[in-house]
């Protein structure tokens, strides 16, 4: 949905992605308008599968020009793809596809907690978060809580990115809403449905961007606008704590 909103706002010239849509319903209408009709501006598209875009980020994270894979043979994604080449296997096996490195200018990742140096603990859904954080030229960590450094150091296996790779740390509770954050926030599904319905037309999208982006000076206002009971409805109150892990030496 975030892709679609940025596209609809005219902020995007080129998309490199495996999927652009809305988890509520499939189609991203702003994406379609841009791709099909150049509204509000023409859009260049580099299509991927989840694995190939993941490997492109992973290649950058590993510091190599490409990673080999078997995904994509027989399909149109890899045909004439600017970032994918068919290569012979130097060990005599079948050909592989080389997916070229993708180095984002900026990655923004939201985590549960980080210290002031940017050492960040993340748990729950990972997807390609870690690869993106390592691949990017600059990585910005937003977090539910800035915690004392001893909290991070109590569980170094939970650290997904060391602070020396992090450009900035932002404490922004609820910063991933309406998406979920394990142990902190439930997904707020209604905004996904609302956006999907509203963004069907340019006028609807413009109104939506006004109401939910341009008129929102900060996250607190966003939470207020979600409704008086938003925090109560969405904040996780239960506790299901990870089993103890002892790091004593």
């Amino acid at each position, binding site marked *: 949905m975030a892709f679609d909103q940025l596209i609809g706002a005219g902020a995007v010239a080129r998309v490199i992605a495996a999927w652009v849509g809305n988890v*509520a319903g499939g189609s991203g209408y702003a994406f379609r308008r841009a791709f099909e009709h150049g509204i509000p501006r023409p859009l260049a598209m580099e299509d991927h599968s989840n694995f190939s875009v993941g490997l492109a980020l992973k290649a950058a994270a590993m510091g190599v020009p490409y990673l080999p894979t078997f995904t994509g043979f027989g399909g149109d994604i890899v045909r004439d793809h600017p970032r994918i080449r068919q290569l012979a296997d130097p060990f005599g096996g079948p050909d592989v596809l080389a997916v070229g490195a993708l180095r984002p200018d900026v990655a923004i990742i939201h985590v549960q907690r980080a210290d002031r140096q940017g050492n960040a603990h993340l748990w729950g859904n990972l997807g390609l978060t870690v690869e993106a954080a390592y691949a990017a030229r600059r990585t910005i960590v937003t977090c539910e809580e800035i915690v004392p450094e001893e909290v991070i150091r109590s569980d170094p296996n939970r650290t997904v990115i060391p602070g020396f790779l992090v450009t900035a740390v932002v404490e922004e509770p609820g910063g991933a809403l309406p998406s979920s954050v394990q142990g902190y926030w439930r997904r707020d599904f209604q905004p996904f449905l609302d956006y999907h319905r509203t963004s069907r037309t340019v006028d609807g999208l413009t109104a939506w961007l006004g109401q939910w982006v341009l008129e929102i000076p900060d996250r607190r206002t966003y939470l207020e606008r979600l409704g008086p009971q938003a925090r109560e409805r969405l904040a996780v109150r239960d506790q299901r704590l990870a089993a103890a892990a002892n790091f004593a030496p």
Partner: protein
Amino acid sequence: MSIATYTRRELMVVAAAREIRDGEVVFVGMRLPLLGFGLAKATHAPHAIGLFENGVIRDRPAEQFIYTMGDPPNIAGAIACLGLIDVMSLLQQGRVDVGFIGGAEIDPLGNLNTTRTRTRDGVVRLPGSGGAGDIASLAGRTVLIMEHEPRRFQPKVAYVTSPGHFPGRRRGGPATLITTLGVFDLQGGMFRVKTLHPGVSLQEVQAATGFALEAATNLATTQPPGDDELDFIRHADPEGFWTGDTMRS
């Protein structure tokens, strides 16, 4: 039990569940396959393991309804929550027996298109591959799930997002197609009606298919859901979000 007592999507969930054998490693998608996986676990395949492309591995369904595979209830109680590259690597290693994918268009070789197509009004952009192209490329076999409409069944899809059968394929390929009208055998590049859903005629299916169908002379009827199966589905999708009669996407 009459056809009025269950929806076509409920029947499709049941048909999907039957494609999972006990002990298999299953690349699960959202929507109908997710319900099918849970149903299979609850009935004939208690030892099946489910992989999600975001990195989650589960051996039991989520305790609450989920909209996306990254939603917190899909992580809580999982066996493992790894990254996308990790589970895609297992897929690429050949550790996944069966994967489920859907498409907007299909052709006789089982190629699926979810990227872009062309209508009289011009180009239509679809969301893209997501993980579908990877599952189609790398799973031991795939089960395809589709709405059965004439415009979706094309002699040749406009874009091959998820490759079907093709010369030189190293592994896998479409095994079964489950539609709103019937179940089809796609093994080895065939495209043959296997069972028709209750109340559906072969003529009806052929009319909804943009290419000639093969069929056995004595066609069986798709076994309808039993009461236990319906109970499971309605417990898992209490509001009919995925299995109600109105398609959401």
